[in-house]
């Protein structure tokens, strides 16, 4: 593994306090290129870590460098880094296109070139049809994707994404994950946070587990996968007529258990292979023209995995 600081994201004994409140405490990390996921329950410090890495926050103590660049030099840092931050807000009156193209103009492209490249990036995320519309009128998943478009538009070698899968339907989720895979190849950094371990573990080269401001485990963690097989992911599906879908899923390998909701408007399914599960749901949707209201992991069983890991780490 390389130890050249120009290829690493380095945290040296970094602490961040919000007044008395602990954000993160004594974090030392050396993150190599590839896909790294940052996993922890709400309030564990994931966003704090990412905001520090991108210069939005300054460490109370310690030093951070991103591929050899200090985080207090935004002019250089943000050539290297694309950051999809957690807030789901946008400049007033922005359209998808103006939002991305405006950023590219600041990066250095002329108006026309910025426009073209923005269109190209937006297309990559499957939002072409909505590019000219106001972002304020986008759905949650579309907003998530337009933020992503802006973060990747200038092809930064480091991409930092705070809960990028939130609000995406299974199809968009699969497409975005495919994009991550492409992106994470070729010596780039991709850092993704999630509070759902199952979502990101399979696509990551390494996992950083956080709890209450501390990094509790780091690296290619043995046992995470095994533990996750013992605690399959529970997914809630809501739709008007769930029976045909449930019937298709119950026979599939990736589904270990399925329970219809009492009101007949959905079901819980357990799976050890969320991506396979989402693919199945997506096929069913396409073939049978189902309209889904919700497909979402239920987090409470993740607690069991944390308990195990945090207890042992």
């Amino acid at each position, binding site marked *: 593994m390389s130890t050249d600081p120009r290829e690493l994201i380095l945290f040296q004994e970094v602490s961040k306090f919000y007044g008395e409140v602990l954000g993160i405490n004594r974090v030392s990390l050396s993150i190599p290129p590839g896909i790294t996921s940052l996993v922890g329950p709400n309030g564990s410090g994931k966003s704090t870590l990412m905001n520090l890495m991108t210069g939005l926050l300054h460490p109370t103590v310690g030093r951070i460098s991103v591929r050899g660049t200090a985080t207090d030099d935004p*002019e250089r840092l943000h050539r290297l*880094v694309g950051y999809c931050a957690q*807030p789901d807000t946008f400049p007033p009156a922005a359209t998808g296109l103006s939002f991305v193209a405006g950023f590219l103009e*600041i990066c250095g492209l002329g108006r026309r070139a910025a426009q073209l490249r923005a269109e190209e990036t937006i297309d990559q995320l499957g939002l072409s049809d909505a590019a000219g519309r106001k972002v304020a009128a986008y759905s949650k998943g579309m907003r998530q994707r337009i933020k992503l478009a802006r973060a990747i538009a200038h092809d930064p070698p480091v991409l930092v994404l705070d809960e990028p899968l939130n609000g995406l339907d299974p199809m968009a989720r699969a497409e975005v994950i495919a994009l991550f895979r492409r992106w994470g190849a070729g010596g780039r950094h991709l850092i993704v946070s999630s509070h759902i371990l199952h979502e990101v573990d399979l696509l990551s080269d390494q996992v950083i587990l956080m709890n209450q401001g501390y990094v509790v485990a780091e690296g290619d963690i043995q046992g995470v996968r095994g533990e996750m097989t013992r605690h399959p992911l529970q997914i809630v599906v809501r739709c008007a007529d769930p029976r045909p879908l449930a019937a298709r899923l119950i026979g599939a390998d990736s589904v270990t258990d399925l329970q219809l909701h009492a009101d007949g408007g959905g079901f819980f399914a357990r799976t050890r292979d969320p991506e396979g599960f989402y693919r199945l749901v997506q096929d069913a949707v396409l073939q049978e023209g189902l309209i889904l209201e919700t497909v979402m992991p239920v987090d409470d069983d993740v607690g069991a995995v944390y308990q195990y890991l945090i207890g042992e780490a």
Partner: protein
Amino acid sequence: MSASVNPIDRPAILSRGRWAQLRVLTRQELRLRATGLWSLPPLLLAFGPTFLLLFIVVVKHLFGPGDSAQEIVGGLADWRQAFAEVFHSLMLRVCVFFGCAAVFLNSFRSAVAGRYLHYSYLSPLRRELVVAAKYLSGLIFTGIAFMLGSLTMWTAAHLDGPLGETLPALFSAQGLRLGLTYAGISFLGCLGYGAVFLALGLRFKNPIFPTLFLMVWESINLFLPAGLQKLSIIHYLQSLGPIPAKTQLISVVAAPTSAPVSIIGLLLVTMGLLWLSMRWARGMELDYGSDA
């Protein structure tokens, strides 16, 4: 979604000079200012005095046919003296002051309240440029509005009285020069107050109290010892007035500062405040609170 575009194959974006970045940013800020209704209050303030004068002219015309301007205030000279008083007490102390407060206090605050400032801070540019662009766009907006407002106010004032006499006076070289001087003073007012309010909006989560303090400070200005009078924006703006505003208040009025010194002083204060704002922006942390 097309997988065909491999981002790695795209040409790298060359960095752009800071001036070009400033131009792009300022244009974007101006566009942002043009959205929504919030630019209405400053515009009302800029053209309020004009409408007030027009209203007075019309009322006098309708209800007091015998009441010509001369009967009230005498000749043109006296009458322009009256304009100077109204310009200083209404246009500068109220309209420019609050117009700049409305525009510049919100430069950063609205971006923080709307939670979109991070997009600027996550761009490959120095934060100093964000400050400069917000200031410039505000200055372009208020500068144009208040210069036009001052010119229309000057014009409206000449509609009072016998037009055969006032219109030639308005379009005489001296009349035009005076009008442009007032417009210039309004611009300098926007320059100075803009920098003050930009800094206040950056520094204070709730800038109401600093603004009130500033308002009181600028309005009790006349009662202060001559030395302290010079520590205000209004002193220099007043010093630049082509016709010194006479004040009826019993107080020691600091001798007006000469025009070049006033202008240089205002520019220096503005630059100092901008420098402070830039420092604050650099050190600023952005996470919109813990509920994000």
